[in-house]
């Protein structure tokens, strides 16, 4: 029997993602890929995978998986999620071997909106346009172009186990407060006067619940245009903040369209897009305007963090999760579905 991960349960919004699909924006194909690329890369680094390898992007809906057919090492990194295996509560950034029949549950915890479940294996799915990233809106990539559901089985090729016990992974760069998000002004900041740009920076902003992998709607002050709200369409970068006619900005995320016709007041710097993606609906934040050099320096620091091997220490604290304890007192299956 080949090694596989079976999805036992999955809330809405979890998909297979890698570092994204590159080279087809000119034909209208979005990059997709991990919302939080730093966390995604960190989970891969913990397994010595290539940093853009495909894994599972777990939404706040959570997921429960079980290994089948053989052992495979997995790692989790991202927001502060509740991670547990067979009753053992694990740190939020962790790697461990899953042996056949062993379950791992990843659920929304104290903070953050996405957790990346990396596997020490290749997920055996067909690449579409060079990538395994799922784009649900066009039904492309990943598993049948859709979100993962209970009963799905991801076949794994070249599965490796580490052979040591579960280990806490040290990734201090994932401790990123989400209250200040850095942006570079433009490309259409000249559609707004200085007072509106200051209001835009100050916010405070919250992410509307009407947000998805394509765009985050930002609730806060209405931003007025000085020169109209329509431009002849041009390119949209990941992190671009469009201001449509109603003045409610949209931060364009991993599944954004490649082109569009609203003025873009600013663009979230690459290193802060993941930080923004982890901000939960309702949490307040503001923007800080920085120059391109500052953004490049932040990108360089991120690359340096991901350059070396990662430090990990065996998990020593044995704490039973409340879910495990509760399950001891419940009729089997009462919480299923």
């Amino acid at each position, binding site marked *: 029997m080949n090694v596989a991960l079976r999805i036992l349960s999955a809330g809405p919004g979890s998909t297979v993602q890698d570092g994204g699909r590159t080279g087809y924006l000119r034909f209208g194909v979005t990059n997709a890929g991990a919302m939080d690329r730093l966390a995604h890369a960190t989970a891969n680094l913990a397994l010595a995978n290539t940093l853009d390898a495909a894994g599972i992007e777990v939404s706040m809906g959570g997921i429960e998986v079980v290994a089948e057919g053989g052992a495979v090492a997995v790692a989790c990194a991202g927001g502060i999620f509740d991670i547990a295996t067979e009753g053992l509560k694990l740190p939020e950034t962790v790697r461990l071997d899953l042996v056949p029949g062993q379950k791992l549950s990843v659920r929304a915890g104290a903070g953050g909106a996405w957790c990346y479940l990396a596997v020490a294996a290749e997920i055996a799915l067909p690449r*579409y346009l060079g990538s395994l990233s799922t784009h649900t809106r066009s039904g492309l990539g990943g598993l049948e172009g859709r979100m993962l559901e209970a009963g799905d089985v991801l076949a794994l090729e070249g599965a490796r186990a580490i052979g040591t016990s579960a280990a806490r992974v040290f990734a201090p760069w994932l401790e990123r407060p989400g209250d200040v998000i850095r942006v570079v002004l433009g490309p259409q900041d000249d559609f707004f006067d200085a007072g509106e740009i200051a209001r835009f920076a100050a916010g405070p902003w919250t992410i509307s619940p009407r947000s998805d992998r394509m765009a985050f709607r930002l609730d806060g002050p209405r931003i007025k245009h000085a020169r109209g709200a329509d431009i002849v*369409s041009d390119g949209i970068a990941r992190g671009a903040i469009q201001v449509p006619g109603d003045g409610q900005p949209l931060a364009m995320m991993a599944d954004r369209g490649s082109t569009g016709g609203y003025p873009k007041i600013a663009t979230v710097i690459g290193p802060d897009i993941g930080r923004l993606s982890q901000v939960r609906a309702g949490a307040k934040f503001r923007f800080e305007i920085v120059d391109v050099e500052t953004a490049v320096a932040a990108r360089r620091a991120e690359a340096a963090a991901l350059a070396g091997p990662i430090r990990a220490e065996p998990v020593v604290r044995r704490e039973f999760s409340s879910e495990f304890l509760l399950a001891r007192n419940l009729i089997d299956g009462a919480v299923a579905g």
Partner: protein
Amino acid sequence: MQLPPALPPPRFLDAGEAALVVEFGDTIEPAIHDRVMALDAALAAAAPPGLVELVPTYRSLMVHYDPLRLPRGELVAAILALETAPKRSVAHNLWTIPMCYDPEFGEDLGFIAKTVGLTEARVVALHSGATYRIYMYGFAPGFCYLGGHPPEITLPRRQAPRPPTPPNVVMTAAGMSIITTISMPTGWWLLGRTPERMFSTARDRSFFAEVGDSVRFEAIDRASFDALEARVARGELIARAAPA
């Protein structure tokens, strides 16, 4: 070779630290798009290390780059050097795409005809007699924005969006045409439906027409539509190419 008159230099607009907009104008004009496409071809050929991908639009080229491998200053210098070099001629195709204007698909033909004061047959003749240019893709895979819409059959957008259209329709508004690939509500007006797919995973090449290529529509009847649709469903490309 006679040098063309000096063109105004492009504007360089940052879209974060990893994308640069090279803007040649803020209107929809073939001459502006020619410069976009010339730079697109020249930069793709030069392929400086750290160049990630290029997105041509109506009026600008978005250059996605890795600033750790290709600093902004070097990228701008490379672009300016390519821009001032003699223009490369870019080879483009002229695609003939079958289009069924049958009332079942061309739902708004009657309204368009009445609004502009022409017969439906004349609207179809004008629409299928024109040559369009693919200015850009966007919104969804293969979703195609065309310029060159005949001025005689131009009308503004709808006041309110209409319910979702079928996929693979050609629509018009505000002097532009689009070929869609997905079902969606829209503020545009429906002229017809093509059996062709601007994007298909059933073919070896998901996309066949490049930005900058030209397009003509060949009017077909309802029976031909069904026959061609069956061929397309088997993964066949039915659009025909000739050098533009």
